[in-house]
């Protein structure tokens, strides 16, 4: 058994916890208690209230929105242990992290790994302060699950590229300041012909057109590049290294979509509590729809087992220092369960779970409809379930290619 932590380590923790608690008391506006930031990337920018702005700036100044990032680029410079304490204290204070989005979740970690010193100095600090919105320029109309098939082309013009092509599924493209994009710089090689570059969304020749989704929201855009000039200092890594860098970034995305992501989107009220409200109970105190009762019980046990699996992956990663094979199932299983939950919500709420807008539905009910519809995308983007199954069976299980 591991020995007990040394006393000094313990007291360091206590000191830090006290520091955080004090700082939160001083800086977190009481008016924001219980708010969350989880849907902001889907719903687009909302007008920031004065309190919200103050809170974002306060957190940004400490670097605590990106607690483990290096201090020199504006991060918090905290240890994992400290970050955990920070997180606990935030929850305790009913505070939320106002610094988020793709810059924090995907692009930042990737640039910290692959970017040049100059690039890090330029791009990381604004992310830590929540000042710059990034979007992802990966998918194209004919390169969805088959990402390596991208055709957007950057022609080498000496000190810059001239980029032409069309991207799609650009999350928040209409609100983004900058785009990290996969651009083909060599047509003679498929994977090795791809480069990873950073494009200003307000550069000449960049046009975005929001895509309306079945949920009624437009969180994605089509993005058109017409003779867009991209200076070579905006190339991350080497030319032709884009596939490697791009895939690394997707790992960050996947981690977010499975464990964290879907967990965050699960409302705090358990299904069975919702069901008791809508369905009622019989004389024995059982939900008054036997089949639904069984389904909820099944779901809740599966969900616990999934959360346990996500925790197991984290624990194993911590111990072994590597990513366990089990992590390969998290996205596939987590998104499946998320969708299952949304369908169960309809069974629970009945017609009330299918409201679109207007009178007769609570906000929660209307949100439930949108969550259900939007959630259908979770098994498609970020590597569809079919692609996940290919990866698991071939890479993890060692089954051969089906071709």
């Amino acid at each position: 058994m591991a020995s007990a932590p040394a006393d000094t380590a313990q007291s360091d923790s206590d000191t830090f916890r006290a520091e955080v608690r004090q700082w939160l008391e001083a800086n977190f506006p009481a008016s924001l208690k219980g708010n969350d930031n989880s849907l902001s990337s889907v719903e687009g920018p909302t007008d920031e209230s004065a309190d919200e702005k103050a809170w974002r700036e306060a957190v940004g100044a400490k670097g605590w929105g990106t607690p483990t990032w290096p201090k020199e680029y504006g991060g918090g410079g905290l240890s994992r242990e400290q970050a955990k304490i920070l997180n606990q204290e935030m929850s305790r204070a009913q505070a939320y992290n106002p610094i988020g989005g793709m810059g924090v979740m995907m692009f930042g970690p990737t640039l910290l790994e692959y970017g040049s010193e100059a690039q890090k100095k330029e791009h990381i600090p604004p992310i830590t302060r929540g000042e710059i919105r990034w979007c992802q320029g990966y998918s194209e109309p004919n390169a969805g699950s088959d990402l390596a098939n991208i055709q957007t082309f950057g022609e080498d013009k000496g000190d810059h590229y001239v980029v032409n092509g069309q991207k799609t599924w650009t999350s928040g493209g209409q609100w983004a300041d900058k785009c990290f994009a996969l651009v083909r710089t060599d047509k003679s090689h498929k994977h090795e012909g791809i480069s990873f570059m950073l494009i200003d969304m307000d550069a000449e020749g960049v046009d975005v057109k929001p895509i309306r989704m079945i949920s009624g929201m437009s969180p994605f855009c089509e993005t058109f590049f017409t003779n867009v000039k991209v200076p070579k200092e905006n190339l991350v890594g080497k030319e032709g290294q884009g596939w490697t860098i791009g895939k690394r970034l997707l790992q960050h995305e996947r981690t977010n979509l499975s464990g964290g992501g879907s967990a965050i989107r699960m409302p705090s009220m358990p299904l069975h509590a919702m069901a008791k409200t809508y369905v009622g109970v019989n004389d024995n105190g059982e939900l008054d729809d036997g089949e639904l009762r069984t389904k909820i019980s099944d779901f809740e046990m599966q969900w616990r087992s999934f959360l346990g699996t996500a925790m197991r992956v984290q624990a194993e990663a911590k111990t072994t220092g590597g990513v366990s094979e089990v992590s390969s199932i998290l996205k596939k299983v987590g998104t499946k369960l998320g969708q299952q939950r949304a369908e169960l919500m309809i069974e629970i709420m009945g017609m009330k779970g299918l409201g679109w807008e207007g009178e007769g539905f609570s906000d929660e009910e209307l949100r439930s409809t949108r969550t259900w519809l939007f959630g259908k995308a979770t098994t498609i983007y970020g590597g569809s379930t079919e692609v996940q199954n290919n990866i698991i069976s071939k890479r993890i299980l060692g089954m051969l290619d089906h071709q």
Partner: protein
Amino acid sequence: MAILSEEQTMLRDMAREWTKKENPVGAFRKVRDEKLDAGYEPAVYAQMAEMGWAGVIIPEEQGGSDFGYMSLGLVLEETGRSLTASPLLASALGAASALILGGSDDQKSHWLPKIASGEIVGTLAVDEGPRHNPAKTEVSVSGGKLSGTKTFVPEGMSAGLFIVSAADGVYLVDGADGGVSRSDRSMVDQRGWAEVTFDGAAAQKLEGGGDDLLDQILDRARIGAAAEMLGMASQAFDVTLAYLKQRVQFNQVLSSFQALQHRMADLFGEIELMRSAVENGLTALDDKRGDIAMAASQAKAVANDAIHHMSKEAVQLHGGIGMTDEYDIGFYLKRARTLEQLWGSSAFHRERFARLNDY
């Protein structure tokens, strides 16, 4: 496909032709985008009625063709394919069945010709909460005046006749009565749902049909809804299959991937069983069989489950574009869920089927 009579074949072909040419899914999109009050285009329903579709189950002496439920089912299947927004199901099947089963001669000859001609739209006002539960009603009737609130009434915005369930029976209420008020409910399928409140509205009881009149009416409506879902599932299957055959990923058309092939084979099987369940229901009605209640629960539960699975797979197999409003496939998903809930979820009908079989 059941063995059809010549008239049925003609009717089905006509419906297929019309939906394809005159009323493809684009027509529903227009209704949706224009946010029509009724939830459908009245001129289109008039056209449908003119072709005789609103009178398929109505006796000839009341202006119908008396072709039976299988025939109406065939039309509903075709209009289901193109998601035609119309009150055919609620009025020409639901309300018409109520009158045929329970109406007096006077009531029939007053209302049925109007339903058959499309002059008015009838509908069923049964539930009083978000989940189907016909046994639970707080509607009160005294001295011929009916009061209470019915939720999620299909075509509730346009209906000129409500078939209203109460504890002691089923009543007719004229939509024009001053005691009727309606409140639009914007549902995910963007059809004409409403909450309808009756405040001392004049009501006539349906005296015929026996104690289980409400069940009998609902069973007809359930089988009709299942027929509409059958058309939707068939079409969603066909559209998805066609998409898989043309979409290329990893240098291969999607239809060449075995994992997708086997999923389509499963769906194909499910939809065939769904068809059998629906046709069994329609036949039970036309043959006035003794097991209509069982056949209705079977049809609705099997249809619910099949369209549920099919609509999910249709979106998933379309990938990203299936998530866009620009593509039609999402409409099938949305309409599927409201029909699944309408007049009983699968859980409701499995529970009922067990009860009907005494277990």
